Structure formats: structure tokens, C-alpha cells
């Protein structure tokens, strides 16, 4: 194992860390994006970057900012403005197949299709989270009191998955069977789309801010506790009636980020004190990837091959860990 340091400006909050076309890339909340390709390249892309997501093909990063813009940055450092329309912050973004983008800006949001067609997101509450279904035909929008599902290419009314409370984030399972939301309470809520069966995943001591599916969708790793909480989804009823695995407990240190390996059932776990561990699900074996540092781990992503992990903290520390 080897670490490469790619620190951002001291104190900078890492909003996104990952790989574009295999080049380590780090986006901070000020709006600087740093590409680490032999020599470092820094691009000033927003006056305040609030959200970012890599495209499905892994070749570009789309981001939304305080400036009301959506930008797209490529691995060579070139970038373009995809959309500029909002007077309010753009703080939610999701990417779908073929370059599709959805964004949220308060109670307004749009879907930008690959031919630059633009569709409104039909919602009257604040957009708290966005996620495309795996095939990209549907968009899940999380809001107060539930999740709305909107068809990308149709005007038919949204399907509403209701559950009381504020849903601050949303994600589909890799095969599209389940929709999972993060809640303002210390809990997740899930629905099996086929029959809208509810799944309550509770018991967290803290808000859950990060979740990640294992590559085949057998496990859902989550933050929000003093260990990674990993829910089993291999049975037909998902995690209902089963206890989650609790792995990577390091005393009282909170887990803040989780990211499943792209090909193995191994979870990268980032902590509030800057530590990072790799946890193997089948035998619970733990390998330390990074010691305590400055700040909380706020972003992590594996490269496509699963040999390198990019990470960043809320205090400007960032880097790449290479597994040997």
C-alpha cells in the first residue's frame, strides 16, 4: 500500500474526490478542481461549489454552485458551462446514462438531456436529493414526506413513495429493485419498487450522510455510527428481519464516509478524525489505509480497477491510496 498526498488549499472542504478517466481529481467547496496527472493542474470552476458527481462513463465531473451554474470538467482540465439559469444555489446534482444531468435549486430543478433538451422537475417542495434509476429512464427526487419518481421522457404524473419526515438524500440499488433515502432523523428508509414495501433502517446514533452499494447490490454500507453499518440485501425482503453487520469500529470515532470497492466485497470506511480503513465483509478483516489526520473525511471514491482510492477531508487534506 502506498499513499500519495494531494492536499488542497489548507482548510478547503473536499466536496468530491475520485477519478476522471483514471486521473485523480479533487473538487473543493470554493470551486477549485485539482487534477493530479504527473504535474498538478488546478481549475477554478465555480464561485462556490456545492455539489458534484462524476458522469456514468467516468470521463467528466459535473458540478453545481453558489453561482447558479452547472459545469462539466474533463480529465484534461477543459471545462464548459452546461447550464446557467438559477438565481439560487444549485446544491443537488445527479448524473444518468448518456450524459443526462438532473439538478436541484431550492424548489426548482431541471433534467438536462443529452441533446440539451431541458425538462422541469415537477415538485413543489425543496429538492433534497436526486438519483437516476440504473437505466436512466426515471429520476428519484427526495423531499419532505417521501420520494417522487419522475419519468424522464414522459409527462405522466410522478409516482409518490410516501413516508413521513424529511428525506435528505436518495439512491437506487444497482439493479433498480430498491430505492433508499437518507432521513433527517438518524435513519434510512427504503422501498421495494415492485410492491412499494417499506424498509425501515434505524438505530443510528447520528445522521447518515453517506451510503454505498456493493458491486452486486448484496450489501448497503452506511455511515452515521461508530462503525460502518452494512445492511444485507441478498434475501428477497432486503434487510428486513435481519441485523446489519457492524464493521470497522474504532472506539468512539464516527464513520462519516463509506465507499464499496468496485469488484470486491470490501468497504472503504472514512472517519471523523481523518482515518480510513478497508473492511472485508465476509471475514470482517480490517486493514488501515490512512492514519488519523486533520479534519473529517468528506469524500472518497475508488478508481475503476479498484486499485486506488481517492479521498479528501474538510480541512484540505486529500490524497490517493494505492493498494499493493
Amino acid at each position, binding site marked *: 500500500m502506498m499513499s500519495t498526498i494531494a492536499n488542497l488549499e489548507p482548510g478547503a*472542504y473536499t*466536496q468530491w474526490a475520485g477519478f476522471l478517466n483514471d486521473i485523480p481529481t479533487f473538487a473543493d467547496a470554493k470551486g477549485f478542481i485539482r487534477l493530479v496527472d504527473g504535474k498538478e493542474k488546478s481549475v477554478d470552476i465555480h464561485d462556490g461549489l*456545492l455539489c458534484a458527481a462524476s458522469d456514468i462513463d467516468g470521463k467528466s465531473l459535473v458540478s453545481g454552485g453558489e453561482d447558479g451554474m452547472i459545469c462539466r470538467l474533463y480529465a484534461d482540465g477543459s471545462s464548459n458551462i452546461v447550464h446557467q439559469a438559477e438565481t439560487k444555489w444549485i446544491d443537488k446534482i445527479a448524473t444518468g446514462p448518456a450524459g443526462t444531468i438532473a439538478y436541484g435549486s431550492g424548489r426548482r430543478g431541471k433534467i438536462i438531456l443529452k441533446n440539451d433538451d431541458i425538462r422541469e422537475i415537477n415538485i413543489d417542495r425543496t429538492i433534497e436529493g436526486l438519483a437516476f434509476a440504473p437505466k436512466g429512464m426515471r429520476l428519484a427526487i427526495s423531499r*419532505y414526506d417521501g420520494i417522487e419518481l419522475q419519468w424522464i421522457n414522459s409527462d405522466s404524473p410522478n409516482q409518490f413513495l410516501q413516508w413521513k*419526515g424529511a428525506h435528505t438524500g436518495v439512491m437506487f440499488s444497482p439493479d433498480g429493485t430498491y430505492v433508499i433515502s437518507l432521513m433527517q432523523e438518524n435513519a434510512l428508509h427504503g422501498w421495494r419498487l415492485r410492491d412499494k414495501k417499506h424498509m425501515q433502517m434505524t438505530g443510528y446514533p447520528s*445522521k447518515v450522510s453517506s451510503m454505498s452499494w456493493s458491486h452486486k447490490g448484496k450489501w448497503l454500507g452506511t455511515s452515521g455510527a461508530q462503525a460502518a453499518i452494512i445492511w444485507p440485501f441478498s434475501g428477497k425482503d432486503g434487510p428486513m428481519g435481519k441485523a446489519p453487520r457492524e464493521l470497522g469500529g474504532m472506539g468512539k470515532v464516527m464513520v462519516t464516509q463509506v465507499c464499496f470497492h468496485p469488484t470486491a466485497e470490501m468497504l472503504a470506511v472514512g472517519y471523523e478524525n481523518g482515518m480510513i480503513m478497508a473492511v472485508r465483509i465476509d471475514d470482517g478483516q480490517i486493514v488501515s489505509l490512512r492514519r488519523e489526520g486533520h479534519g473529517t473525511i468528506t469524500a472518497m471514491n475508488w478508481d475503476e480497477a479498484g486499485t486506488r482510492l481517492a479521498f479528501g477531508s474538510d480541512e484540505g487534506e486529500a490524497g490517493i491510496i494505492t493498494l499493493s
Partner: protein
Amino acid sequence: MNDVATQNKQSDEKVPVTVLTGYLGAGKTTLLNRILTQDHGRKYAVIVNEFGEIGIDNDLIVDSDEEIYEMNNGCVCCTVRGDLIRILQGLMKRKGRFDAIILETTGLADPAPVAQTFFMDEDVQAKTRLDAVVALVDAKHVMARLVDSREAEDQIAFADVLLLNKIDLIDNQEKPELLRILKKINPHAMIHETTRAEISLDQILQRNAFDLARILDDDPKFLSKPDHDHHHHDHQCGPDCDHDSHVHHDHSNAQGNLDPSVHGTTIETISLRAGELDPNKFLPWIEKITQIDGPGILRLKGIVAFKDDPDRFVVQGIHMILEGDYQKAWRSNEKRSSRLVFIGRNLDRQKLERTFAACAV
């Protein structure tokens, strides 16, 4: 959430947030521009819920949609402002851009969810602290507002600082009655009479009104002052008055005389007094009272003397949220006594008095 927390907060590291409430036309934007344009060397981030017609003179303004989120715990008064959680989290990712945050609410905003956000959301609580709720009151129109709107009354009852603005627009004869009504709704707020929201900024900023350690600094006679209204209407403190015992604290009118038909006020203050209390009785009692009567309690504050305990215990609450901690020790020459003040609606005075009295040693 309902536990009496005993954690020490490092309030100095957290960014202070001042909340400006008040009806449309009361002068919020005028005050905001006053704060922003004075030469104080401080940088502010401003959150607004509706861009008004009057411009705001600041680099960093965030426009937000009011989103009230009920918490999923079965309590209708446990509400937070989802938009604030989102915006504050975003702002705090870029530290160093500002020293403090000012939040201007809409004229009809309920201040409770705003304040509760700072106690109920762990991310907001970790990075920011509610400094004070400042309410602007339009002296000319407040009486009419109190008749037709519950929000106007809530904003007054909830405030730590009240600016009775546009005071130049009313007759001197109207003023005593106006002040009497404001003090009836909120006996503990600092009241400043202002014209065009002109006020010394240290009266509204850096108040630490929600800091348990300083909660009673504005009110050093909290324990000793009488509950009765002495009708000292001949002396009113203006903004420049540094009169030690601000007369507006001496009118708690807590012994009743509340007539909802007069000026439509429905909020009352209940003041409870006792000597030393038994912590094993008081702590369960205050938790239970805030659980049961939380929806009606807008604010609560108190100092408690526990038997055989050298330190005073201080509590504050908003609806069902309760916070308590030990503060500085009783002085040897000081009378050890306890006092709790509830500001709220539909509170059962007899029950509160009886059950509180049962907490005595």
C-alpha cells in the same frame, strides 16, 4: 433531545447567527442594511427568505425557501427549518468568508422552527450557534397585527431583543399602553425604542442569548425582582439608556390579569418561585412538563438551587427542547432560591404551580 444535557459547548468556535423577525414593513431590511454598512470590520453572510424590493447591500446573500420539517417523533412542535440546515451546511463549507450570519425571516415566519434548528440538527449545532432572536415591531401598526395575527404575537413572545420601531409615528400617549402590551407578551426581552431601526449594534449582535452560561447576564435581577407589574410607565429606557436594571424587566405581570379580549393577546407568562429543590424531583418534573405541555411553551428560562449543591443550575427551553447545565456557584451571602419563567399559550397555571412546588426539598 429531551434530556437535560450537561455538555459544555465551545461557543466561541461556532459562528453566531442572529435571527431578525418582524412583520412586513416593520423595518427588518432597514436594520439589516444598517448592520451591513456600519464600519465594524466584520463580514456577514445574509440569508433571506424572500428578496424584498429594497436592496440588501452585501456580497454574500443566500436566498432560501422556507421549508418547515416536522421531526418524525410524533411531536408536532418538534419542527426544524430544512432550508436552513441545507444553507448553513453549505455556508460552513467555506469558512473564513464571514464572521457571523444574519437570517432575515419572512413577515409571517414562525420563529420556533428557526430556533429549534440550532438545537435539533447535529450538523448545524456543530458549526453554528443561535446568538439571539431580534424582533422588529412596527409601533404604528402592531396593535392591529396583534388582533389579526398569531404570528405577530409569537414573534414578540419569542424575541430576546425587541425593537419598537417607527416610534416617531405614534403619540406619546399611546406609548405606555403599547409597552405594557409588549411586556405582557414578553416580560424578559430587552425593549429598545427606535426610529428607522437606528440602534447601537452591540444591543442586537453578540448577545449570547441562548448560551446557558450567559443566559441571565441581561437580567441580573432575575431571581430577586418582583413578579408584579408596578406600572412604572413614567420611565422608559431608550436605546442609549445604560440604566442598570432596565425597567422593562420589572413588568413580568406574571400574576394573571390576562385578558385575551384586550388587544387579542393570547400569550401569558407564568413565573414560578421556590427555595431549594430536590434534583431527583425537579429533573423528571421539568422533562415531563416540557413533554406534555411543550406545544404551548414558547420559551422557558430558569435558575435552580439544588439542595446541598454549591452551583446554580440553569435551564432554558423552546417547546419540547430542553437544555440545562450547572453554572457559576452561589455566593455565600446570596439567598439560594429557584425561579422558572414560562412564556406560552394555554398553560395550566395551577398545575404548574402545584407540581413545581412539589419539587421543593
